[in-house]
């Protein structure tokens, strides 16, 4: 059910990512101010954008779950948030490397994207521990959905607030989407599309894998029946269960 179309999608993703990286290194010109270091921009900003959309998508699937009670929505929400968290870590690391390369510091408070991501990361890092600490699967799914909705609504508010907190004396230093020459813009757009495809591919991949495990567990429960020498392997996990 979740694996359908995965092969085509992954092929498309490979082409897009390789294409985007090729454009980054062979086509896009060097930035006037920052030189070669600016190439990290094509990695850092798409990661950030896709991660944010992923968090919001997790919230949307949370809403869908609460309205329909369909466990698959809960699974989609869980995987979306899980993957976005990984992308958020990648954003923070790449942003930090960029800061170090440009400014000599491993962290800059003046860059609102980085700061917002730190806060968002701290928030979503609680998602899995929260799920893990609730034992009843129904309650776990419900509470996780509420969390994903509240956190999803929080993300844009947070960005606004942090951006406003920038003092006027320190203009944004790292991102530079204004006045980009056409070739840079094309590369940038392609990078975003490629990153989004990568995200969706990994999302479907993980959904298929988790769904298979869930069905396996169901099958095992059905077959267990009166069999003596076999005990179910009881491993608690934060992932949704059927």
């Amino acid at each position: 059910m979740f694996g359908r179309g995965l092969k085509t999608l992954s092929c498309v993703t490979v082409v897009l990512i390789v294409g985007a990286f090729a454009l980054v290194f062979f086509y896009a010109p060097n930035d006037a101010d920052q030189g070669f270091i600016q190439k990290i921009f094509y990695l850092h900003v798409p990661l950030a954008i896709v991660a944010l959309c992923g968090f919001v998508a997790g919230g949307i699937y949370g809403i869908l779950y609460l309205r329909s009670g369909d466990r698959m929505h809960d699974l989609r929400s869980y995987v979306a948030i899980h993957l976005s968290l990984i992308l958020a870590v990648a954003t923070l690391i790449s942003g930090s490397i960029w800061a170090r390369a440009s400014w000599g510091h491993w962290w800059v408070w003046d860059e609102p994207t980085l700061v917002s991501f730190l806060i968002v990361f701290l928030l979503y890092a609680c998602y899995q521990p929260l799920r893990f600490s609730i034992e009843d699967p129904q309650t776990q799914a419900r509470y996780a959905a509420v969390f994903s909705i509240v956190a999803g609504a929080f993300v844009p508010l947070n960005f606004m607030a942090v951006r406003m907190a920038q003092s006027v004396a320190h203009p944004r230093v790292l991102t530079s989407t204004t006045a980009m020459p056409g070739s840079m813009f094309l590369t940038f757009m392609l990078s975003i599309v490629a990153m989004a495809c990568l995200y969706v591919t990994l999302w479907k991949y993980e959904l298929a894998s988790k769904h298979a495990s869930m069905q396996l567990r169901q099958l095992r429960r059905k077959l267990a029946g009166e069999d003596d020498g076999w005990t179910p392997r009881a491993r608690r996990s934060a992932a949704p269960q059927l």
Partner: protein
Amino acid sequence: MPALPLGESGKYVAAAYCVFLALILIYVAIMATKLARIERDLGELNELAERRAAAASDEEEDEPEPVAR
């Protein structure tokens, strides 16, 4: 033309892209272990099903005996 200054700034760019690659590959590795576990569990379940089928056919063979006694 590809500008690849492997001096100062090239290292940082390379580091960033390597981190990205590493995260993806770690993810693939974790999914691989999950897949291995699924495969192992399926094997066990297959075995279980076969044992059940064998036990069922044994019972069918044993049944006529009590009647004959």
